[in-house]
C-alpha cells in the first residue's frame, strides 16, 4: 500500500510552504525543526490557535511524535522528497538539502507544468526513500494510463483498491489488470465489501485508507486535471492534454536505467532531465541513446533523477555542492510561557442580609421547598429542577426572568425595550449612577453560551463608554448571561483574557443555573450576594 501523508489539502499552501523553504534554507543543511521555524516565521502554519513563536511553544512536546507542527512539517518533507524537491543527506533521513530541481520549481513561472511532470515521475522503489512494502508503483502515471478505459473518471475508493494498493503497475499487462479490476468493482457494485477486505488484510482502518488519498486527490483536483463530479474525479480538458503527453512518454523506472549497459550515465541523466522538464533537446543524445534503447525519437523518457537517485549520485551528476553549513535558527525565546489562566472563575460570595426585596416574579418559586432545605445540596437540586423547563423559554420570558433574578439579588436591573437601537444591550444594572450592560442569550437562541455572546458583550461596553461616558465606569464589567456554560470553556476563557489585555475591558459570564442557585441560597440562608463580585466579574461565575 502506497501511503501519501496529508500535511494539508491545499495546493497553494503546498507550493507557498516550499517556496519559503527555498528562500530561507536553500544554502543550508536543515532539519525538521528548522523547517518548522521558517514556516512559523512566515505565518504559513499555526498550532493550537497560535502563530509565531507561541505556535512553536504550544506545539513543542517532549514526545516528538505528538508534536503537531513537527509532524506536519515531517509530512511536507516526505512529499517534497517524493517530488525530488528536497533530499535527505547521506546517512541521516531527517537532515535535508534543497535540490537544484527544487530550486528551479521555487523560481519557475510555470510551476504548474513542472509540478505535473513531478507527480507523473513519482515512483517507488527509488533510492531516495526507503519503503517497507515491496511494491513497484507509479501512481499518477498509472491513473492517466487507465483513465480512458474507465470512462475518464475514478473514485476515491477505486483509487485505493486498484492503484494505491497495487503491487506492480509496470508494463501494459499490469495496466490491463488494473483496468479490469476497476471495471469489476463497478460491475459488482460492492466497493464497501472490497474496502473492508483490504482494511482487514492490511490492518489499516478504512478512514485511514481514505486519508491516504487526500493528497493525491488534492494534486489532481487543484491542478485542474480532474474535477469532482458526483463522487468521482472526472478528467478535464487540461487533464486530457496531460493524457496526450503521458501517451508520448516512456515509463522508465530505476531498474530500467540500471539495465542500460553504458558507462556515461551522467550524460544520460542530465539529458533526460533537461528534455523532460525544460524541453531542451540534445539531438546527439537522442540519436545515441534512443536508437540504442529502441525508443522512437518523438517519445519522452519519464524519469527524474532527482526523484530516483540518492544525494551522492546527484551531487556527482549535476556538480551539485552538497557540503553546506547547517542552518542556524535565530534563538527562539523558550521562556515564552502561556500566560493564559486555564479558566477564570469567581466563586459566589454571600453577605448577611440587610434588606429584602419584593419583586413580582414571573415564574412561581418553590418557596416552601427552599425554606425547608437543610443543606446546600438540597438547594442545588431545587435549583436544577427549577432550571429544567426553562429550556423552552423564548426571548421575552427569559429576559424578564433574568431581570427578576438580578432584582431579587438586590440589583437595580432593567431590561431594554425591544427595538431600541440606542440601547444595544438587552438589559442593564444601574448602580451608583453607572450602567453595567448585560447581553442575554435565551435558550431558544442558544443553549450554550459562546464566543458570539462575548463579541456582543464587548461591543455593548464600547458603545456604552462612547455614547454615555458619564454612565460608564471602565472598572465595571460588561456581562453576558445565558442558559448554560459551554462544556469546554477554554475558547471563551482565552478570548476574555485577550480582550482584557488588549482593550482593558472585563467580561463576566453568568449562566442561568448560577443565578437561580444564588437567589434560592439567599432565601434559604437569609444572606445577600456580594455585589462587587458581579459588577467587576471577569470570567465565569461559579456557585
Amino acid at each position: 500500500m502506497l501511503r501519501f501523508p496529508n500535511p494539508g489539502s491545499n495546493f497553494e499552501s503546498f507550493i507557498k510552504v516550499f517556496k519559503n523553504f527555498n528562500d530561507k534554507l536553500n544554502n543550508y543543511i536543515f532539519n525538521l525543526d528548522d523547517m518548522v521555524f521558517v514556516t512559523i516565521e512566515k505565518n504559513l502554519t499555526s498550532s493550537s490557535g497560535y502563530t509565531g513563536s507561541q505556535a512553536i511553544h504550544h506545539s513543542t512536546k517532549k514526545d516528538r511524535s505528538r508534536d503537531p507542527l513537527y509532524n506536519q512539517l515531517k509530512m511536507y518533507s516526505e512529499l517534497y522528497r517524493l517530488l525530488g524537491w528536497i533530499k535527505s543527506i547521506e546517512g541521516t533521513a531527517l537532515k535535508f538539502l534543497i535540490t537544484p530541481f527544487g530550486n528551479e520549481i521555487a523560481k519557475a513561472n510555470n510551476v504548474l507544468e513542472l509540478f505535473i511532470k513531478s507527480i507523473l515521475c513519482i515512483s517507488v522503489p527509488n533510492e531516495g526513500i526507503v519503503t517497507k512494502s515491496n511494491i513497484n508503483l507509479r501512481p499518477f502515471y498509472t491513473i492517466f494510463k487507465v483513465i480512458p478505459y474507465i470512462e475518464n473518471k475514478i473514485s476515491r475508493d477505486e483509487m485505493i483498491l486498484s492503484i494505491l494498493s497495487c503491487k506492480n503497475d509496470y508494463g501494459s499487462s499490469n495496466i490491463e489488470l488494473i483496468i479490469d479490476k476497476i471495471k469489476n468493482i463497478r460491475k459488482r457494485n460492492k466497493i464497501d465489501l472490497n474496502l473492508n477486505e483490504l482494511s482487514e488484510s492490511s490492518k489499516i482502518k478504512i478512514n485511514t485508507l481514505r486519508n491516504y488519498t487526500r493528497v493525491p486527490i488534492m494534486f489532481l483536483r487543484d491542478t485542474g486535471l480532474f474535477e469532482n463530479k458526483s463522487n468521482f474525479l472526472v478528467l478535464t480538458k487540461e487533464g486530457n492534454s496531460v493524457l496526450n503527453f503521458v501517451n508520448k512518454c516512456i515509463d522508465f523506472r530505476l531498474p530500467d536505467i540500471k539495465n542500460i549497459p553504458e558507462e556515461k550515465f551522467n550524460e544520460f541523466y542530465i539529458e533526460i532531465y533537461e528534455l523532460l522538464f525544460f524541453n531542451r533537446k540534445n539531438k546527439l543524445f537522442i540519436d545515441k541513446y534512443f536508437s540504442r534503447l529502441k525508443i522512437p525519437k518523438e517519445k519522452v523518457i519519464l524519469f527524474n533523477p532527482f526523484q530516483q537517485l540518492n544525494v551522492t549520485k546527484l551531487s556527482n551528476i549535476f556538480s551539485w555542492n552538497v557540503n553546506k553549513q547547517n542552518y542556524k535558527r535565530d534563538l527562539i525565546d523558550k521562556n515564552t510561557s502561556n500566560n493564559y489562566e486555564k479558566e477564570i472563575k469567581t466563586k459566589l460570595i454571600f453577605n448577611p442580609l440587610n434588606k429584602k426585596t419584593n419583586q413580582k416574579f414571573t415564574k412561581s418559586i418553590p418557596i416552601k421547598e427552599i425554606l425547608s432545605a437543610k443543606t446546600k445540596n438540597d438547594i442545588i437540586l431545587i435549583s436544577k429542577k427549577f432550571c429544567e423547563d426553562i429550556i423552552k423559554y423564548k426571548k421575552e420570558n427569559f429576559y424578564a426572568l433574568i431581570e427578576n433574578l438580578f432584582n431579587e439579588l438586590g440589583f437595580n436591573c432593567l431590561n431594554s425595550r425591544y427595538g431600541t437601537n440606542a440601547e444595544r444591550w438587552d438589559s442593564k444594572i444601574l448602580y451608583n449612577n453607572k450602567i453595567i450592560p448585560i447581553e442575554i442569550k435565551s435558550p431558544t437562541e442558544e443553549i450554550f453560551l459562546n464566543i458570539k455572546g462575548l463579541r456582543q458583550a464587548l461591543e455593548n461596553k464600547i458603545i456604552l463608554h462612547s455614547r454615555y461616558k458619564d454612565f460608564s465606569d471602565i472598572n465595571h464589567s460588561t456581562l453576558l448571561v445565558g442558559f448554560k456554560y459551554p462544556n469546554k470553556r477554554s475558547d471563551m476563557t482565552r478570548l476574555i483574557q485577550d480582550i482584557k489585555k488588549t482593550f482593558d475591558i472585563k467580561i463576566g459570564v453568568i449562566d442561568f443555573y448560577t443565578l437561580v442557585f444564588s437567589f434560592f441560597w439567599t432565601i434559604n440562608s437569609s444572606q445577600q450576594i456580594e455585589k462587587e463580585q458581579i459588577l467587576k466579574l471577569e470570567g465565569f461565575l461559579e456557585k
Partner: protein
Amino acid sequence: MKAYRKLNKLTDKQKLEFVKKQISFIGCDINLKRIGDNNMRIDATSNFNNNKKAIFSIEFGNDYVSVPRKILEDFAVFHNRYNIIKENIVPFSILKNLPSKRSEYYQIIDDIKDVTNISIYTLTFKAIENIKINRKTIYDFNLNEFFISKKNYRYRFIKNNL
C-alpha cells in the same frame, strides 16, 4: 462589477477565493483562513507596508454590524496571542457595498475609534474595483480615505454613489 453579482452562486470557499484575488489586485497578498481551522478565527490576514499586519473580516450578506464585532475579536486575538503591537495591526472590513446611511454600522465604527482608538477601514467591492481599474494599489491612498464613519460615509475618491 458583473462578477460580483454572480457571487451568490458560488460556494463559501469560492467566494473567499474570489475576494482574495480582488484584494491581490490592489496590492495585498492575503492568506485565507483554512476552512475548518476553528482556532484561527480571522477570515484573512496579510502583510501590510512591510512591517504591519492587516486583518480582514469579510461579509457577503447584509449583517454589517456583525463585522466590527468580529474585527474587535480578531484584533484582540492578533495582539495578545500573536504578540503584534496594536499600532501595527490594520483592520479592514470587506463589505459587498456600503450600508444605508441610517445603518448602525457607521456609529459603531465611530464608537470603536472613540473608545479603543482603533480605525476600522472599510473596503467595498466597488471601492476595490475602482482602485483596480484606475491601476492603483491600496498603498497609493491615505488610509483615512477608507475610514468610513457617520461623519464621512462615502468614499471621496469615487465620484458616483456607491
